């Protein structure tokens, strides 16, 4: 799978402001629904899933969330990158009682489980590197962001 297909200019959101994670999910889900990249069931499913099994990762100084839900709710396989102007509280994956201040969200959409292994390796390399995460939150325009994600792939 090519990185160009994984990150699309239309689904990169930079320095967004949200009161809470609910507002983030509503904005992204509405956008994706307009693009027909997700099904109408998507918002409800991803909100419930995040409530039951949160995806905030305590990756270090820069924290990332990797929201995702069952593949039957999406029509494509790609990432949706959103950086936050001020950190947004997400519950921590391995300790759901804790809310951690998250600097960016990399939402994982997938519609076919077979495409996954390569994509997961790629995501791991990004979220496990504070250097990479810092580069993402310091990137202030869509073109450079897309380019940055292509560089991560190479």
């Amino acid at each position, binding site marked *: 799978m090519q990185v160009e297909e994984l990150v699309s200019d239309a689904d990169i959101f930079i320095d967004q402001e949200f009161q809470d994670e609910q507002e983030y999910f509503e904005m992204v889900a509405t956008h994706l629904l307009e693009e027909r990249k997700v099904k109408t069931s998507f918002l409800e499913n991803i909100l419930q*899933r995040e409530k*039951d*099994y*949160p995806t905030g*990762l*305590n*990756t*270090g100084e820069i924290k990332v969330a*990797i929201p*995702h*839900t*069952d*593949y039957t709710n999406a029509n494509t396989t790609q990432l949706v990158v959103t950086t936050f102007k001020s950190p947004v509280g997400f519950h921590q*994956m*391995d*300790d*759901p009682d804790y809310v951690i201040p998250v600097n960016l969200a990399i939402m*994982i959409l*997938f519609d076919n*489980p077979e495409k*996954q*292994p390569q994509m*997961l*390796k790629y995501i*791991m390399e990004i*979220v*496990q*590197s504070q250097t990479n995460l810092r580069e993402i939150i310091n990137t202030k325009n869509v073109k450079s962001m897309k380019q940055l994600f292509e560089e991560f792939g190479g």
Partner: protein
Amino acid sequence: MATQKTVIVCCASSMITSTMAAGKVREIASENGLPEPNIIQCKFSEVEGELNTNNVDFIVPTGHLDETVTHGVKTISGTPFVTGVNEDKASNEILAALEA
């Protein structure tokens, strides 16, 4: 010589984060010349059922797994394989459990 271990690697969907952790468990075994573990990848909600039908050596959940469903089987957090934080410590625990 260590025997082959049966390991449950689980997360909410059995799709994303458990796949990340399962890869690491296999990698630790092969890098240390240990028998390839029999990995059962499943959802949190399926753990209890898998424990009833398999002789499981240990469980690697990538998120919060309720203790009431683990039936006292040893549990090692797989979250470090997702975040990269404390990964060495988690790898050592997995290695020890595979060698046991």
